[in-house]
């Protein structure tokens, strides 16, 4: 059956058809839709795990129990799951264990663009890389088979353009699905990694990688395509498609097994062409391997090491280094079309994070008096030296770093905010410090840091922005929501109880739309000598989809201070000297943040 599938849909379907029994994941762009698709299939167990480390450990357990299991995460998620990933490489598997990681070259929605192919070499694990949805689907069965045959987890690496692009794939219509029967066979020498058991496993791992390299020499999905022999391109993943587009006549070796490298296959291909060119996104992973094999290749002098690749960049660079002739037909003249106002993503109308961000901005470094637009433009030059420092975390609320909110001072990685705030405090920085973290992120990796603050007698204030969902990635459940990956009712972990349970005595639960209470609670907590938690609770408007009565600006009462525009609400716009509220976008009295900041009371419901 021909279907138009995204890579993520194809991976989910491929795994399901391959007899998957269990899948565990933590949401993260561009990987999220894999689990969302798996959750629609009957007869398998799926879960959103608290974090990627837990997800992989759950999948490992299932594999030890003999069934095929999948752990799914974005690239930085594998950093969190690195410990069990390396451990799984040592113990090996029983049922097939596949780890899907989706890299994000170009950082469409990530804090870095690390190249996770290094993890395959680092952990001594075989790696497969599809270059379109067809391969994403077909390779999944191979991944499980390889895992079982070679007693190893398999790294299945995707990138944004594989995961999110839709291409046509031929998939089985309703195949007979066979799943392994769950059964745990005790084997402490394999599963209990005390040093005396782990030592004899290491030579086995090395032996396994040798066998895999030999096996990949004849792997049917690696493809050699000989045409014009003057250039032979070796490529994999999305980069392969760009290379085919830009070098339509060149010879190609398209690898799907990118670790370990089938060396003879590569050498044979190289011998048949005059010049070997490696086209790969990000790091010179393949290039370095080929160079270590003593081959002469063109690599990073062609393709930039930074950013996402695309056919344009590849073509320009190929012309620049003389691999391609300058195009005969001159390219459409560049149109000087720059200088457009940017349109960055925003907090939505009715966002429960907006009021807290607004309050933090007022209390933070960047507060300047509303009338003083000129000093505002100078950025931080007018900051208050004694302003509160706000360490932040990964989620929608990170968008409060942009104007007009300018509320945040740090954001590094999942769960970092609380530890960073504690470190700033213990270093002796005398400003008041708060950390801001979302509900899902707090449960992912904020809890241990909060325990650290309690234990080490910090005085930090932790603001948990609880919008009752994992919003940034598209509203997945998490332990605090009481909703499972299948959208069913699950047991709910109560965040404030959890905080009290680890020893925080000053725990406050407040309304996310009540600006005065938010501000006064923050002011009180930062002065306190003991650690405090403020759970700021309000549902994400995109999930709830209920609107209140829309608000309007009674222009005759407005004194044009434009303070309401500092809330950063997309429903508010300025037309000449008037502020207008878009009634289609406004969430009305569900939110009313603009009404709360209007000192002339000019913002009200229409009739009032």
């Amino acid at each position, binding site marked *: 059956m021909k279907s138009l599938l995204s890579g993520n849909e194809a991976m989910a379907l491929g795994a399901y058809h391959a007899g998957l029994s269990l899948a565990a994941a933590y949401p993260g*762009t561009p990987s999220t839709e894999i689990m969302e698709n798996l959750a629609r299939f009957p007869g398998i167990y799926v879960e959103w795990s608290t974090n990627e480390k837990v997800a992989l450990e759950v999948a490992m357990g299932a594999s030890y129990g003999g069934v095929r299991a999948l752990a799914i995460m974005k690239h930085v998620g594998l950093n969190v799951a690195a410990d069990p990933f390396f451990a799984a490489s040592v113990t090996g598997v029983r049922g097939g264990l596949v780890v899907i990681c989706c890299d994000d070259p170009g950082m469409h*929605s990530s804090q870095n663009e690390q190249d996770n192919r290094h993890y395959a070499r680092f952990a001594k694990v075989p790696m497969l890389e599809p270059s379109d949805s067809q391969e994403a689907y077909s390779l999944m069965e191979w991944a499980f088979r390889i895992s079982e045959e070679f007693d190893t987890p398999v790294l299945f690496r995707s990138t944004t353009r594989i995961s999110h692009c839709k291409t046509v794939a031929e998939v089985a219509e309703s195949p007979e699905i066979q799943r392994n029967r769950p059964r745990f066979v005790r084997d402490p020498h394999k599963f209990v990694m005390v040093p005396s058991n782990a030592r004899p496993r290491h030579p086995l791992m090395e032996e396994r990688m040798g066998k895999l390299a030999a096996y990949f020499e004849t792997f049917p999905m690696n493809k050699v395509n000989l045409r014009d022999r003057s250039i032979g391109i070796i490529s994999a993943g999305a980069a392969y498609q760009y290379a085919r*587009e830009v070098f339509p006549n060149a010879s190609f070796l398209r690898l799907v097994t990118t670790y370990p490298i089938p060396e003879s296959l590569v050498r044979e291909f190289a011998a048949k062409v005059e010049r070997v060119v490696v086209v790969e996104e990000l790091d010179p992973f393949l290039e370095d391997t080929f160079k270590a094999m003593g081959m002469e290749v063109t690599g990073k002098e062609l393709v930039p090491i930074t950013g996402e690749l695309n056919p344009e960049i590849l073509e320009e660079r190929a012309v620049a280094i003389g691999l391609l002739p300058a195009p005969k037909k001159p390219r459409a003249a560049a149109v000087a079309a720059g200088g457009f106002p940017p349109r960055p993503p925003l907090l939505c109308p009715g966002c429960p994070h907006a009021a807290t961000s607004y309050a933090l901005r007022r209390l933070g470094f960047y507060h300047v008096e509303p009338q003083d637009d000129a000093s505002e433009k100078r950025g931080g030059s007018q900051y208050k030296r004694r302003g509160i420092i706000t360490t932040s975390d990964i989620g929608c609320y990170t968008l409060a770093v942009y104007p007009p909110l300018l509320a945040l001072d740090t954001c590094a990685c999942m769960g970092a905010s609380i530890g960073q705030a504690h470190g700033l405090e213990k270093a002796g920085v005398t400003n008041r410090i708060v950390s801001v973290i979302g509900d899902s992120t707090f449960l992912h990796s904020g809890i241990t840091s909060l325990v650290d603050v309690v234990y080490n007698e910090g005085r930090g204030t932790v603001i948990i922005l609880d919008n009752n969902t994992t919003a940034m990635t598209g509203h997945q459940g998490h332990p605090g929501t009481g909703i499972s990956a299948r959208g069913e009712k699950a047991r709910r972990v109560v965040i404030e109880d959890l905080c009290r349970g680890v020893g925080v005595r000053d725990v406050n639960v407040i309304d996310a739309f009540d600006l005065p209470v938010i501000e006064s609670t923050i002011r009180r907590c930062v002065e306190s000598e003991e650690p405090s938690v403020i759970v700021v609770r309000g549902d994400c408007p995109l999930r709830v989809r209920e609107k209140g009565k829309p608000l309007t600006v009674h222009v005759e009462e407005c004194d044009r201070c434009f303070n309401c525009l500092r809330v950063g609400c997309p429903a508010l716009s300025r037309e000449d000297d008037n502020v207008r509220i878009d009634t289609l976008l406004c969430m009305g009295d569900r939110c009313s943040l603009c009404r709360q900041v209007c000192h002339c009371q000019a913002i009200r419901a229409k009739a009032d």
Partner: protein
Amino acid sequence: MKADILMTGVGGQGVILASDALAEIAMKAGHEVKKSDSLGMSQRGGSVVSHLRVGERVFSPMIKKGEADFLMGFERLEGARWVEYLREGGVAIVNNLAIPPLSVVGGASRYPSVSDVEEILRRRTKTIYFVPGTQIAAELGNPQVLNVLLVGFLSAFLDIDERAYIDDLSQRVPQKFLQLNLKAFARGRQEAQCGGAAKRD
């Protein structure tokens, strides 16, 4: 048929749904199809762009600058922003709607006027359509059917049977919204075929 189509707009306008539908329709009509969207952060009211490539043999899912046959902007500024992708003499279809981004709202930058946008698009092509899509969609009963209306407009330029669009909509759209969507599609197509008023050249 070969058609490289770039659809652009603002998060929430239904750009990606429209390109999904068009991709599916083109595939069923027997063409090779690839599409690539910007997802994730752009859902939060940011700039959205979707590349759709239809042809005999397609490798890259992304259109190169200067090679799009069609540039369809769901919003004026977003139509102008991606002009570099349009090929010389391609077709520009712009929904005549302004959604000023925050930098404009705050007074830091200026929103381009209709004639600014026209002047920018003219550097690439003379075939420019400004469609009062949001206004028509609202008249039909719901501004949200803008995306179907624009697909209808674009359909008049593509070598795919009208029936294929209607079949796809009938499968895709819930029964109670189907009539409205079919009406929006037909109206969009009709605007392109005989609503010459929109065209500027």
